[in-house]
């Protein structure tokens, strides 16, 4: 028991704090995902327009997101804005901004792919049945786009939850940070608690992400045409 640090975990409100930390991580990912989906749909549809300016700007944006480590983005937004604009961004808000910046790019790319993947003949067979443009989008194009999109965006959620472990670097007290604090506080009395505590964090992350992952692969299977 002691070797695994379970007693440390159960001491005081340590476990509650850990759960709290996990909730912070989930909150950051959830809020960011919602913003990413909304902005991503707009961005994705805009990208399907054949316009040189739009395509250059979006290419640059996508490349930045792809190349930059999220950590660098976090530092730029959190510390950079303070220096540059004298803004004092809340760390959690800074995280949400960075995650949304990242998520919008990924969602946008997914939306663009999903929309332009719908074959021209699907539109035509719909028109041939007498559906007008709006009906075709509503009954044929959008449902098919969403089906392709939902499993992929669920994957994005799990990746975001995982990546929230980085936000402690800018001072957000999420699960990993709480764990470190607990370990520090009990360094004298329970020097070996680290393994058990990190294992707990591992299990908590797993419990949060696994059902989401399962849902994604279930939907993917169910809707694969």
């Amino acid at each position, binding site marked *: 028991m002691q070797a695994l640090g379970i007693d440390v975990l159960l001491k005081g409100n340590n476990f509650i704090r850990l759960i709290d930390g996990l909730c912070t991580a989930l909150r950051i990912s959830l809020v960011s995902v919602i913003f990413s989906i909304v902005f991503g749909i707009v961005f994705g549809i805009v990208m399907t327009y054949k316009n040189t300016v739009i395509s250059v700007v979006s290419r640059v944006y996508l490349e930045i997101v792809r190349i930059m480590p999220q950590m660098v983005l976090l530092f730029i937004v959190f510390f950079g804005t303070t220096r540059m604009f004298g803004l004092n961004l809340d760390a959690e808000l800074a995280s949400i901004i960075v995650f949304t910046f990242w998520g919008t790019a990924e969602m946008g790319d997914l939306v663009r792919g999903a929309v332009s993947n719908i074959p021209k*003949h*699907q539109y*035509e*067979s*719909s*028109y*041939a*049945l*007498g*559906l*007008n443009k709006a*009906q075709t989008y509503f*009954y*044929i194009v959008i*449902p*098919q786009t969403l*089906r392709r999109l939902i499993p992929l965006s669920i994957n994005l959620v799990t990746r975001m939850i995982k990546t929230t472990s980085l936000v402690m670097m800018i001072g957000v007290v999420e699960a990993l940070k709480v764990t470190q604090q607990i370990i520090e506080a009990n360094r004298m009395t329970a020097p070996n608690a680290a393994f058990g505590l990190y294992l707990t964090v591992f299990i908590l992350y797993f419990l949060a992400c696994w059902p989401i992952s399962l849902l994604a692969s279930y939907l993917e299977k169910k*809707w*694969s*045409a």
Partner: protein
Amino acid sequence: MADKLLTIEHLKKSYGDNLILKDFNLTVNRGEVVVIIGPSGCGKSTLLRCINGLEEIQGGEIKLYGEKIDRNKKNIAEIRQKIGMVFQSYELFPHKTVLQNIILAPIKVQKRSKSDVIKEAEYLLEKVGLSDKRDVYPRQLSGGQKQRVAIVRALCMHPEIMLFDEVTAALDPEMVREVLDTILELAKQGRTMIVVTHEMSFARAVSDRVLFLDKGEIIEEDIPERIFDNPKTERARRFFNTFEYDAVKNHTDTLNRKV
């Protein structure tokens, strides 16, 4: 006097500089089955797509019962309801079941009562032998089954005329028959149809009139008995000959592959 259902006058269609249909004229009477035959790339699909307003045309007129078909006019969706089109690649909607595919347009576009439409869909599915597929998704069907569903879907809109564009070209040989039988049955019911096909014996059986098309022009036009057995033009004769040779060759190829 014959009842003119579809009239095409001086139709001109090009893709950029590529002139596909120069000055195309055709009248289809009510109840008539017109089969169009011609080498690949001669403009058969383009013609059907123009009739359905899926293509911008560069000149001439297409009229259905005197009503002009113009893809840019507001009433195009309404006219298209009267024209049933079946594509080579079926184009069922993958996110909807067989029944949902069939009843979507009658309910949402024609605003017909859902229970009536379902009843009709079930009746038509039974006639093509697919009652048991009512609630499955297109991906669970064979090509021949998909194509029969696509035909039922078009029929359920009560079209005045049906357009078939090489609807068996993508099918495995053993499935061609079931689809052709379905179309033959429609012909017996007296439906008006334009059928593009490479199945010669089917063309002979189904058609009232055969058009031989080459490079966007009608080279020869006659009743099936005469055009197949005794083509007037050298081009048509050559085409039918090549065709038979190719058919034999393809057939042997398939057999060889199976062995």
